[in-house]
């Protein structure tokens, strides 16, 4: 019924290469999440701080990250900043772009999570003699991360999906980049990208299931 002959063997023969690409994709996504979470905590603290300029910087970051396309952010991280003579490798550019995006979205989630934690929690900590920082570190932060855990999982999935945008800055070692290179060699577009899609789907499922597992171990209350 189709006017197209599928040649799955051709594409499947390239599976090992694509799996290598998937590893790079995971590497970028995980790194961007770890750095992104750290930055998001920092941004959240900056936004809570009394200092106007610090607040403004954090808010600008969050709003730009949330209100422009991720593709734009990644493109900017490579070609935009290069106008100032700053050069990043494709890997670094992609990592910076995604991390910038992650940090912005996560900071917003964290702010929402903070609102859900009553002030009395900090008060209780302070009255036990804890410093502001101790109260944040031991009482607020763990609760915040718990409330924001689901959004964090979603963001992790998005981070994985966003790695596909790396090709615009010359990335060719991630899953999408590898797939595109293979496509240039063989032109088996449908088969190759279908396999890539399946790999992406499996990765995201592993992430969501893994997150559920972690959540059930981590948050027993």
């Amino acid at each position, binding site marked *: 019924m189709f006017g197209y002959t599928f040649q799955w063997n051709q594409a499947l023969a390239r599976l090992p290469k694509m799996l290598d690409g998937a590893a790079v994709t995971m590497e970028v996504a995980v790194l961007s999440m770890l750095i992104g979470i750290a930055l998001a905590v920092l941004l959240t603290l900056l936004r809570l701080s009394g200092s106007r300029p610090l607040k403004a910087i954090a808010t600008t970051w969050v709003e730009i990250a949330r209100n*422009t396309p991720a593709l734009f952010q990644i493109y900017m991280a490579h070609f935009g900043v290069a106008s100032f003579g700053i050069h990043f490798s494709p890997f670094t550019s992609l990592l910076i772009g995604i991390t910038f995006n992650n940090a912005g979205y996560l900071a917003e989630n964290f702010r929402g999570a903070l609102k859900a934690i009553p002030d009395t929690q900090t008060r209780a900590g302070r009255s036990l003699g804890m410093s502001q920082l101790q109260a944040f570190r031991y009482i607020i932060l763990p609760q915040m991360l718990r409330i924001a855990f689901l959004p964090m999982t979603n963001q992790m999935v998005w981070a994985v999906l966003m*790695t596909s945008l790396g090709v615009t800055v010359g990335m060719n070692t991630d899953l999408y980049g590898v797939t595109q290179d293979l496509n240039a060699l063989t032109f088996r577009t449908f088969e190759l990208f*279908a396999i890539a899609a399946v790999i992406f789907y499996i990765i995201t499922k592993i992430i969501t299931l893994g997150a559920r597992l972690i959540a059930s171990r981590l948050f027993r209350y």
Partner: protein
Amino acid sequence: MFHTALTSADLIFLAKGAGMTILVTAISVFIGTLLGIVFGVLRGQLGPIWFAPVTFVLDIFRSVPLLIQLVLANAFVGMVLRLHISGLTVACMVLSLYTAAYCTEIVRGGIHAVPATTRRAARSLGMSWLQDMRYIVLPLATRIALPSWIGLALGVMKDSALVYVVQVTELLKSTQILITRLQEPLFLLLICGAFYFIISFPLARFGGYLEKRWSND
């Protein structure tokens, strides 16, 4: 400010790109939302088990990079089915389903948030299922879902930057074309980013405002 070789013709060219971005977004969000409402309501009626196949399919749209969805849909429609469909149509089809996948969850959440007791009260007054949906669930669920929906619509607008792969020249692609000719990447990128920001930021803020206002009462 900048010395630029940008001509008014180039600005019109950019504006056309922006128009395409808005067109693709508008069509996709419209169709996607309709589908999302249908799926969301159906899910509520059928229950998660019977609805599982649809959930599975919709989940794929949220688990595979949009870029790949577009490339695959394009390849499938043309190479496999041999249908002659414009890139714009493919882009809108994919983005609509992509929107629907997220919108279904939003609609489901909105309906779910209407207390069962309120709906019982409506049915007890003799209202039919449709009347209950129309006069009670719709207005209440809208309040809950609208902020997320605004977020979704803006997300789709930003993601529409990827439809260049199916030969649709939207804003970011137009910008790249001009960069090719004019070699002023930073300046042109800033214009492009500003455009997205100017549309997205106020609406996002508006969504946040609605959320705050409606969560208070």
